[in-house]
């Protein structure tokens, strides 16, 4: 079941909210586990401990809370938890340790471009946004990377390193099965 605009939220019916997170279905009881005004970022971080995503601006301006919903990058601070009912959420904890993007972000040290992170606070958000970008555009140009990741802020300013990492990851095979 998916919630459509105008339909009463499941919370009102007291039926459990079901969300698939990193491959596993979870049930949340309205009033106990989940509230109508609870954001998805709050549910994932505070209730479930998925702390890879960060809440930095809490108003959809920085991308630090980016997770993937049904294959698309979403800002979890701007989504109500109940909006995820019936949907599939992927957080950075759900990526393989061998994920090409994680390896590329970690390994970036190509001269002239710096590293792909410094403090690392924005990094999970960038990795998830890049993950969604590569799904849509397996070999993006630099311009497409810049546009695709322009919803994310890195105050340490590692944009050059991030772009290089995404370009490199786009040329590497997925750990299992290869790219579509």
């Amino acid at each position: 079941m998916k919630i459509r605009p105008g339909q009463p939220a499941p919370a009102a019916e007291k039926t459990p909210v079901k969300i698939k997170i990193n491959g596993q279905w979870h049930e949340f009881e309205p009033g106990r586990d989940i509230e109508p005004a609870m954001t998805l970022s709050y549910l994932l971080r505070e209730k479930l401990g998925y702390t890879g995503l960060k809440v930095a601006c809490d108003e959809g301006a920085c991308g630090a809370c980016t997770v993937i919903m049904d294959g698309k990058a979403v800002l979890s601070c701007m989504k109500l938890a109940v909006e995820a009912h019936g949907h599939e959420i992927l957080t950075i904890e759900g990526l393989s340790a061998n994920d090409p993007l994680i390896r590329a972000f970690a390994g970036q040290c190509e001269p002239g471009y710096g590293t792909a992170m410094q403090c690392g606070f924005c990094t999970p958000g960038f990795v998830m946004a890049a993950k969604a970008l590569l799904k849509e555009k397996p070999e993006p140009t630099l311009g497409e990377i810049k546009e695709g990741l322009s919803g994310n802020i890195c105050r340490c300013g590692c944009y050059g390193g991030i772009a290089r990492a995404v370009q490199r990851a786009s040329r590497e095979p997925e750990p299992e099965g290869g790219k579509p």
Partner: protein
Amino acid sequence: MKERPSGSGAKTPYKPRVPRSFIGSYRPRIDALEKAAGKTEFADDLTLKSRYPGLLYAKVLRSPYAHARIKSLDASRAEQLPGVKAVLTYKDPEVAALKPTSAGWTDGVDTVSYERMMWRHFRDRRVLGGHACWATDEVGAVVAAESEQIAEEALRLIKIEWEVLPFVLDPIAAMQPGAPIIHPEIAPRNILPKDVVGGSDVFVDKGDADKGFAQAEVVIEATSIHHNATQASLDNWCCLVDWKPDKLTVLSNSYEADQSRMHISQMLNLPLNKVRVISSYVGGQFGRGDTGDQPFFLFTALLSKRTGRPVKFRHSRRESFHDSRQPAIYTGKVGAKKDGTITAMYFKSIGNSGAYADHTMFALKFAPTEITEAALAHILNVRMESYGVYTNKLPACMMRGVGNSQFNLIFGHVVDMLAEKLGMDPIDLALKNFGHEWGGLPDKSLTAVLREGAKRIGWAAKRHKPGAGPVHDRVKKRGVGFSFHPAWHAEWQEARRGEIRVRITVNPDCSVVLDAPTVETGTGSNTCNVLGCAEALGFLGIGPEDIVWPHTVDTETSLKDCVQTDSAVSYLQSEVIAHAAREVKARLLEKAAKLLKAKPEDLDITGGRVHRKAGPGKSITVRDVFMRGDMLPVVVETGRPPNPEKTGVPYIANFAEVEVDTSTGRVQVLKLVVLNDCGTVMYASGAEAQQIGGQVTGLGEALTEEIIYDEATGFPLNFNWLDYKIPTMADMPDIDPALLEVWRGAGEYGACGIGEGTLTCTPRAVLNAIYNAIGVRIDDIPVKPEKVLRALGKA
């Protein structure tokens, strides 16, 4: 920016002056993998309620007025709200008894006591008072509740009768007779008085400036204005305080731990060993926390004491704006002979301190004094004058590049203007006049950064007379400009900080634990430490991967942390590590000598083997020395007393190429070249990340970032990231980082800090390039399109 085809775009790595195994290498950060995988836990992650089941959340009342006093306060309804566990007000004896303080008191660069705080003349803050000095000031009351929502609701239930006072936002208006006075007991005319650290209003008076101007054949005058920008760390400042009867424990994402412990101990009258401060990863610092709402640690502690439960306080994004860059209005005047020899320089600044003095005078007087000692050493006549002025704006100061960024905006301005008036290339003018006290002219370091920058930006081909370049797309004009500055110099830091201690533990298997504590804020000093340690312990035949660097600073178990300020940590700690490594070797040789029945002085260690110095002979591994002996690790804990030797400063510079759309006023930066003479590059990838990364803030300050106030109410209007514009990846130009090793300081590596300097020259380089493009000067940043159109007479 030009599209690079995938796979190309290789840039030239820098060439190290001295070949080394690990120092200066291009490699990933030591924490890169855990950060990329999202496994790094920041303070906000470590303080979830699931980890602290009894956790309460604190919220503080914020002033709805730019200037007001609480006449009466009734918190009874808030106290009765279900879920509220404590309400503290400024009337509570525990709160009222707290000493007056300053948000800048723990710094200077290092831990100080209450009596020795750097700006002790300006203790103008109450931890929680009844006097609100600016809109959104923390004032009056604080609540601890079961959730942040309940705490916020409780604040709304507090009934307050305000006495609304007149306010002033502009520092020049605040200096006029009849202006509202913010802190009459400290500054009866809003102007901060002379103090022992900053000095008097004329704080530099070298030679005779009047005489120098009389000797001049050419004189120029200029103005530059810096507005409030904010650090914008993604990781909002927070703390969790758990005050148990026997001990107060604090978890925070402050950039220091030992300073926090001293602050809390002295303000709450607790012995130092009853205060435990733990700090680990910080999601970006940029000067955040050196000024701002520091008192929140104290009221959070009192709430924990009152409730007997752990209490968490976290800035909202809105509240994160309470830390910012100090605005300053600079005027500069320079006189020179026709051949370009500068005869006199005069600078005057009026700084908007905002509602609390904090570190104002650090920016206005302390930093320019150091610049005078360094870069202006060959200018015979220099006068500098400064006024820090209280207003009802947000208090500000410590932000990456403190004081230097504001000064560079005028410094690079007068150099560019004077060169134009003399008909000289500003590069030649700079080389003719600026160096440092310990060397002659032209300065080798300055020559290297300016010549390299000119080459990389294409100076000779692209620089034209102001506004006289070719027009692109009918309305677009291009220009190039640069600015330069003395680098952050660790020799000064070292003298001011005192001894720094590290501990190296070599285990029997030759794996190493390096205790070189500093809070990990992303600067790369953690990786510098490990590379420096691997280099210094090279005789063990180990590499960086064999070294563990504990990332948590805990005042109960760690050595005192080296504070993450002044771009100095990599340099300072590496020097001590090299010193400690020599001691490690001596201790290992003693161990081996006993085993081999030889004299330690006849032995040496290379590649992990102990052997006789004379001839190859028999050798054994260091591992065997341990394994055949008592298997006790070698632990060396040592410090390095400050080295008072000063050898001068290297230089840094930024070159910019811009394109200005004369029909819309939009400025697009096409390219930035960032040049740092590092002395020794400690960690190339980290240094480049600092060079490239600093441009986000530098370019933000130059073009888009500014806190805007409603003049009618004094209320800040854009305390959010939708209206406060931070550059994204799509906004940034191609950046070319250039690392140089020309100057060499004292010590093992002779390196100097680079982090703060990377953004210091950016706004002025961009402004000079804009002038070169359009031929009209714009004096204040950020250069938004309307300012360009106004300058062009189109708006």
